[in-house]
């Protein structure tokens, strides 16, 4: 029958989610989707923090997760602001078309 769920299941799940998010950041061209992949990565981190917080019955991990969410909100707001400014100037949302600093 099914094994009982331990903290390891959550750790492996969060590792998988982190890898999927990294893959999105590295391979997608659309900047909006790259920003969403960053949200996936931050959520994977939060799963890890909450899992360890539950495992050791120590609430500090959950407090840290709250701070991670705060930073994620700030990052999303700034990132989308930059995206709007970028679209106004360059008329593109493809990450590899913004290559002004490329050699």
């Amino acid at each position, binding site marked *: 029958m099914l094994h*009982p769920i331990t*903290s390891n299941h959550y750790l492996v799940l969060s590792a998988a989610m982190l*890898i*999927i998010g990294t893959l999105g950041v590295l*391979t997608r061209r659309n900047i*909006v989707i790259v920003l*969403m992949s960053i949200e996936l990565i931050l959520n994977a981190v939060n799963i890890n923090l909450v899992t360890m917080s539950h495992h050791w019955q120590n609430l500090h991990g959950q407090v840290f997760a*709250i701070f991670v969410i705060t930073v994620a909100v700030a990052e999303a707001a700034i990132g989308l602001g930059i995206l709007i400014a970028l679209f106004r100037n360059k008329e*593109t949302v493809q990450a590899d078309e913004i290559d002004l600093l490329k050699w």
Partner: protein
Amino acid sequence: MLDTIFFYVFALLTIGGAIATITRRSAMHSALSLIVSLLGVAGLYLLQKAEFLFAVQIVLYIGGIMVLFLFVIMLVNLDQAAKERQFNRQWLLGLVASVLVGAQMVWMLNSAGVLSLPAAVPAPAATGPGNIEALADLLFREYLLPFEVASLLLLVAIVGSVMMAKKTS
């Protein structure tokens, strides 16, 4: 038993939503898949008795950040982008690199003994303060200064994003 079933349902929502997020062509579909994924994560928080984070995840992530994303997707014209190539030229390198990092991570977790953690500390009997009360105690006593710094960060983020998105004459 019921916990096991719920874990697999939420894990499926999380991973399936995440995969759909990075593979869909239309940014709108990606955003909706991300909402499904975040709902799965919220369920995982609930399974781990983090009720406050469960509420925060739904109200703040799905209600706040994702609505912001949807607004921007509608504001910025993405029709042209959906017709073009979706992955950049280094996609194969990116795939290999992230699979390698993933394998390395699992190998490290395994060899460092993290995947055979000591038994979990049993939850105390439910007589003490609840999750939200205990969290508030910790946040407003021990973490008061970081809490205030976080509010400053949010203020800076608000001003910064308004500055960024403002039309310059």
